[in-house]
């Protein structure tokens, strides 16, 4: 792997001031988009932003809705849930309940950014700076994306997935495939490897290996069917002692793909496809604040620099600033529009705050951030973008000043108490606790229930037991029962789920008998 380019210490100087502003008409044209893009790119280069090559695609509102409803990807396999998504998006859009996002950007190489045809030139400039340079450099630089996603092959893989699912539908019937995908989707959040890095494969390899994999996988599951004893085990060993799997496994779909006894080869392949797609989105779910904040910070920085350099007119500035302001609005708690913390607002504020700490640190900053206070801001920001996820980013960089500015406070909710308690606010005694709570709030592990494959009853009814480890005694939602039906469909035999509290006592069980076909 090539060495990552060194972050610039200082922005490079401007080559030459333009003699006149770029025109800022409300209607864009290809030629104008091209001109803006050239300037934005030159400006981004001055800051040393390292990106995948960019591909800007102009699309219509309808196409934007299409993209919306297939989780933002340009191709995807067919499934009714995407149709449902499309119908509700379309309905809301047509009735004017919602505006469409101005852009969608795909973590691929080249990086595809969609520009909507309805946007004005100023908005296109904003979108290019935001998506094609902000998000793009994040995709390329952040360690989670580098580790878990393969930008070069994702589009190929989705094409492969789409064709494979279509072929299955033809061969095995729409219903069989659809129901099966339903079940896989129910577990997709629990189909990711959290610690192991997937290998990078091209489409051709993917195809070639599929055949081998199918044959091999089918042989592997036979451990469950073994009837001959594996050489008589020691008589004394209690039958319960030997567990399968040896250790609990967190990737439910992976376990099912490799071990479910009754699945056909094509079903295993579909499990794999759903798993791979979930894995692809896994980093995105963990870097909302960082990713959006980074893109917002950079469109703000780039466009402002361009204005200072004399490229942009006042009109263009006012227009994108208006939309920028809307995006980073954070309604306070209790406000009718309040629905949690706005990742754009928090992320933007944090990066801006890091720059402030670098450039104009005060005593408090020197105390809290001795290693970055007063340092050049570009390398510090680059380091922050590359090596963190939301949880650790907040834990590392949320400053007391920002907590005061946002007036953050933590609420402790214990179901055993009648009232909520304000556990910490933005004051000297509360900074650390607020920061810690907020950081934990972005920990995927605490947002999603921790469910693992616990045991398979090899000697009896081959039932699968999952175990839910409660986080702070938070129980599982009742929809768990429905999900378990899907698990049973995938596993083919009875399935159980035990929900255990901190002490390891099972507090609740969900059981679904083997599906009858």
């Amino acid at each position, binding site marked *: 792997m090539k060495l990552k380019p060194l972050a610039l210490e200082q922005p490079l100087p401007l080559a030459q001031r333009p003699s006149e502003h770029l025109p800022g008409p409300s209607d864009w044209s290809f030629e104008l988009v091209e001109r803006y893009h050239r300037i934005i790119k030159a400006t981004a280069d001055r800051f040393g932003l390292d990106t995948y090559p960019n591909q*800007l695609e102009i699309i219509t509102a309808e196409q934007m809705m299409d993209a919306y409803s297939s989780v933002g990807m340009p191709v995807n396999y067919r499934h009714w849930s995407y149709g*449902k998504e499309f119908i509700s998006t379309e309905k809301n859009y047509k009735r004017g309940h919602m505006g469409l996002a101005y852009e969608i950007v795909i973590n691929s190489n080249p990086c595809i950014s969609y520009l909507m045809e309805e946007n004005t030139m100023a908005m296109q400039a904003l979108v290019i700076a935001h998506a094609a340079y902000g998000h793009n450099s994040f995709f390329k630089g952040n360690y989670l994306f580098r580790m878990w996603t393969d930008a070069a092959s994702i589009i190929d893989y989705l094409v492969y997935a789409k064709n494979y699912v279509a072929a299955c539908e033809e061969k095995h019937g729409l219903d069989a495939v659809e129901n099966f995908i339903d079940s896989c989707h129910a577990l997709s959040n629990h189909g990711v490897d959290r610690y192991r890095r997937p290998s990078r494969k091209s489409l051709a390899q993917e195809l070639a290996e599929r055949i081998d994999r199918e044959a091999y996988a089918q042989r592997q599951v036979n451990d469950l069917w073994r009837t001959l004893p594996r050489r008589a085990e020691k008589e004394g060993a209690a039958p319960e002692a030997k567990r399968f799997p040896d250790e609990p496994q967190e990737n439910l779909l992976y376990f099912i793909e490799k071990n479910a006894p009754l699945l056909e080869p094509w079903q295993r392949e579909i499990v794999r496809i759903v798993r791979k797609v979930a894995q692809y989105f896994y980093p995105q779910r963990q870097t909302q604040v960082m990713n959006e904040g980074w893109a917002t910070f950079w469109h703000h920085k780039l466009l402002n620099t361009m204005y200072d350099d004399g490229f942009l007119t006042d009109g263009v500035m006012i227009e994108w600033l208006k939309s920028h302001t809307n995006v980073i609005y954070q309604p306070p708690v209790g406000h009718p529009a309040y629905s*949690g913390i706005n990742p754009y607002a928090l992320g933007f504020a944090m990066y801006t705050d890091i720059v402030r700490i670098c450039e104009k640190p005060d005593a408090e900053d020197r105390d809290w951030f001795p290693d970055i206070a007063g340092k050049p801001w570009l390398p510090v920001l680059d380091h922050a973008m590359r090596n963190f996820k939301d949880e650790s980013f907040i834990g590392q960089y949320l400053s007391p000043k920002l907590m005061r500015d946002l007036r953050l*406070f933590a609420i402790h909710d214990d179901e055993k108490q009648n009232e909520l308690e304000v556990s910490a*606010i933005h004051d000297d005694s509360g900074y650390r606790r607020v920061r810690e709570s907020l950081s934990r709030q972005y920990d995927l592990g605490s947002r999603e229930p921790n469910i693992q494959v616990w045991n398979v009853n090899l000697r009896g009814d081959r039932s699968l037991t999952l175990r839910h480890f409660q986080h702070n005694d*938070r129980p599982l*939602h009742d929809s768990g029962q429905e999900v378990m039906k899907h698990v049973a469909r995938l596993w083919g035999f009875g399935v159980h789920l035990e929900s255990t509290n901190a002490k390891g006592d099972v507090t609740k069980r969900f059981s679904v008998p083997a599906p009858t076909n």
Partner: protein
Amino acid sequence: MQHIVDRRLAGKNKSIGNRERFLRRYKDQIREAVKRAIDGRGIRDMQRGEDIHIPKKDLSEPVFGHGSGGVRETVHPGNKDYVRGDRIERPKGGQGSGSGKGQAGDSGEGEDDFVFALSKEEFMQVFFEDLALPHLVRTQLAEVPEYKSHRAGFSNDGTPSNLNVVRSMRGALGRRIALGMGPRRELHELEAQLLECQQALEPGDKVAEATIAELSERITALRARVERIPFLDPIDLRFRNRVRTPVPTSKAVMFCLMDVSGSMDEGRKELSKRFFILLYLFLTRHYEKIDLVFIRHHTQAQEVDEQNFFHARETGGTVVSSALVLMEEIIKARYDPSQWNIYGAQASDGDNWHHDSGRCRELLSEKLLPLVRYFAYVQVAEEEQNLWEEYSHLQAAHRHFAMRKATEASQIYPVFRDLFKKEGAKAA
């Protein structure tokens, strides 16, 4: 490398496939809603969409998630006057305002039904599902629209067979005149000068001889130049231009035959009307142009307009064959079976002058059935009389003859489906 790609024209409606899958999954609910809509709506109101309601819980995609309860700590912005240790009443509704489940609440529609609009086309699609025209053999070029070629001016290129000689020659003449005008004028002038010089020529005048020689030379050059103008040049050619325009060829005529004798009360007419309109709607899906012929009869048949057909009331006996005879006459006069797809739909209460029923059968099997694509008979009364009996024989012998009984509005729709159910499909 940087690209700006215009995708606006490519890949529109990518979600159609997903939408279809969605509709397919909720087919039963949608069918039910369509059925209800048809029962509730006025008949003329049939061709529009319908809102479909599906309970949200039927649509949910369950995932493992945290339920309420346990211990959690959440951080919120915009603290006004809380200090540490303050106690707040738990908000009603059990949710700690935006805690934990960041992903769930984005649809923001609560527990309402999932409502979406079925387009007119989709509505009709559901309505006509599994139906197809019986023995669907269109008279002329079934699916492919027929083209008629007709003249549309002239063009500069074409095949030699389309060459228009007069136009081409006219063009050539004009070109020759235009191109030759200057040189020719000069030629005339020079010739005049030459003549003058020759007349004034005195022997031994070297200068004059030289002039004459020069003039003759120029004249020869000019002549050659005029002669080099081609008589016919490729740019003169004009060809007759022809364009092809599609012409609707799938024409159908639908004959509505109805008994209006005294025994047909409003209710029965209403039933018959539903039957006719449903058939008409069905035909509009398959043909571009549909003619309607309304024949009502009691003891005599007459062709009337739609208004009179449904609303005028007659009394007296019934001779069904009169209508059939009239239908045959009209076909002969106006609807050549080689040009038109002919459909017959007859509604009656089954009452007929008993000597006439045999004749009806004869007329149908020998004269009408060979001419029509399909003939459907609906009896809007329960008791079987001799007409029903006679017609029953026909049904066995002719595949494109169908008959059913319907006594109430809700039976019309199944009758209709039954009549036109897809060949090979199981009866609904």
